[in-house]
């Protein structure tokens, strides 16, 4: 019995250590990147690269990032895409989900046709040619439009709306309120957790969206922040020399290596800022319920 107890104690300690190890593999890269972004380039070079112990704290890299036109533009582009995109995504997805949560004659057919797009799609090239045809290529709107409605979010919201008892709306309908008004004045406040979850997920989706810019926006001055970061990484991998990134002219004494990490942080921080709210909502089980079916 005593040996058994000891065995359990030992396994408990091992489990704790494994979990801490996992957490460390996630925290340490962030820690080192943050630290390097605040370090003088000369110190980075002197110590042969990434630091674990702080050497010199400086804002040089961040000053450069926020003086570099290309990065400021990219940041603004990302902000526009994220905010406008999320607004229209939530609006249009809920306007689609709400009627489909009712028993409509054509509801099943429409619902299935939406679900079917999760299984099968035209693919990259036909989509590209279509966007070219409707003159959306090379605009910021192309990224917004392509992700405007998510069938998955639509199904989530529809299921959530369906749980709301219909009697609530009936009195409003008798009073002559329109469906639009009912949706936004009555249904929205009642489904705030679901709307917030979808809104936050959409924000993260749009903020992270780098690949569609590669596909659909040839003009690099219209690229969002993560796509610019991708370009920096791609270039520095290609040469493995830090001089290659962005424009060399206005950065004679620029912390090239720390600049890369500063850009990485500027791209990551907004996600970290919404992360606590995200966690609060997905913990409530809306997403899990959907995953379980």
């Amino acid at each position: 019995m005593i040996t058994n107890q000891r065995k359990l104690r030992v396994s408990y300690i091992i489990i704790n250590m494994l979990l801490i190890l996992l957490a460390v593999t996630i925290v340490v890269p962030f820690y080192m990147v943050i630290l390097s972004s605040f370090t003088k380039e000369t110190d980075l070079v002197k110590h042969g690269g990434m630091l674990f112990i702080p050497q010199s704290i400086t804002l040089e890299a961040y000053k450069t990032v926020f003086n570099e036109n290309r990065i400021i533009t990219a940041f603004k582009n990302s902000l526009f895409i994220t905010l406008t995109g999320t607004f229209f995504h939530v609006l249009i997805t809920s306007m689609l989900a709400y009627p489909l949560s009712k028993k409509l004659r054509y509801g099943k057919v429409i619902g299935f046709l939406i679900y079917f797009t999760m299984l099968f799609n035209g693919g990259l090239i036909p989509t590209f040619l279509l966007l070219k045809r409707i003159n959306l290529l090379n605009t910021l709107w192309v990224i917004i439009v392509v992700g405007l409605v998510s069938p998955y979010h639509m199904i989530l919201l529809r299921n959530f709306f369906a749980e709301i008892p219909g009697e609530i709306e009936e009195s409003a309908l008798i009073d002559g309120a329109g469906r639009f008004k009912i949706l936004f004045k009555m249904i929205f406040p009642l489904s705030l957790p679901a709307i917030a979850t979808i809104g936050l997920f959409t924000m993260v989706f749009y903020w992270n969206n780098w690949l569609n810019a590669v596909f659909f926006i040839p003009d690099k001055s219209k690229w969002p922040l993560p796509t610019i970061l991708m370009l920096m990484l791609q270039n520095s991998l290609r040469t493995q020399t830090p001089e290659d990134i962005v424009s060399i002219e206005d950065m004679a004494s620029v912390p090239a290596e720390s600049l890369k990490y500063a850009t990485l942080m500027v791209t990551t921080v907004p996600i970290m800022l919404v992360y606590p709210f995200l966690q609060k909502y997905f913990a409530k089980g809306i997403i899990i319920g959907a995953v379980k079916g």
Partner: protein
Amino acid sequence: MKKTSGYCAAVNKNRQNKFIKEMKKHGSLYLLMVPGILYFIIIRYLPMWGISIAFFDYKVWLTNLFDNQWLGLENFRSFIQSPSFTRILRNTLGITGLKLLIGSPFPLILALMLNEITQKATKRVIQTITYLPHFLSWVIIYGLFFAMFNQTYGAVNNILVHLGLDKIDILTNKSFFWQTLLASHIWKNIGWGSIIYLASINSIPTNLYESASIDGANRWQKTCHITIPSVLPVFAILFILALGRILNEDFQQVLMFMGGPDAVYMTDVGEVFETYVFRVGLVEARYSYATAVGIFKSIVGLILVINANRIAKKYFNYRGAW
């Protein structure tokens, strides 16, 4: 003859009436759906009509499609006979297979370990940290990876040099590529994937554990005989559904770890369907051929997904998203 056409007309009339009735009753609800429906018609369904260019030698889009030269299945044949085909198939099945066989138990193991943690604070901290990578894009993850492993300034190589060892090249080394994809896949998804297992562990009735305690079972025995058997069906469902998506390699991950869209370091080991479509279609502008490759993948993928869903429904009571 006359009779049947009359019958048809009657049916049509009836349908029309029902349609009008429905619109009179629920017109405002349908009106709300208009923007969303337009989105699906234009952005999702029109490209499906666009796949027809795979059968033509494409020069003109949509309206004048039939002015193009008809090729039939020529594009499909030349893809399947090309050396790229075997390479893509090998890479796709290799990478997803590796992730499926080695990667998929990790979230389950994490959930079981978290379940053993009795201190709530520790559990929450670990959960908060491990869920985070799910929300980061592959660009950010590659940036962290680059910071850790690059040759000039990477942290790992820095440590190796300080220890008097040789630097290792992971970023552009073909022989590490699949392992790198597997490791970063596990790193990104382990936390998020564990949520569903934790939820199903929480839904196990507590009286099972209570009666086991009365019978003298210890914690370890309870885990082995109650917790694990209860979550295995969930694992099986997720595994089968993942099998159905075996052709859907994580495009963003592969593209980024190959070194970005312009990089061609590791096409031997990293070329999968999507990267090939992107390279041949958008970079080389061979629209018809690239579309054929895309359709091939979509149709095989669709068959796999439908069968996987069917198996999951039949044997594991999976209810499906629909």
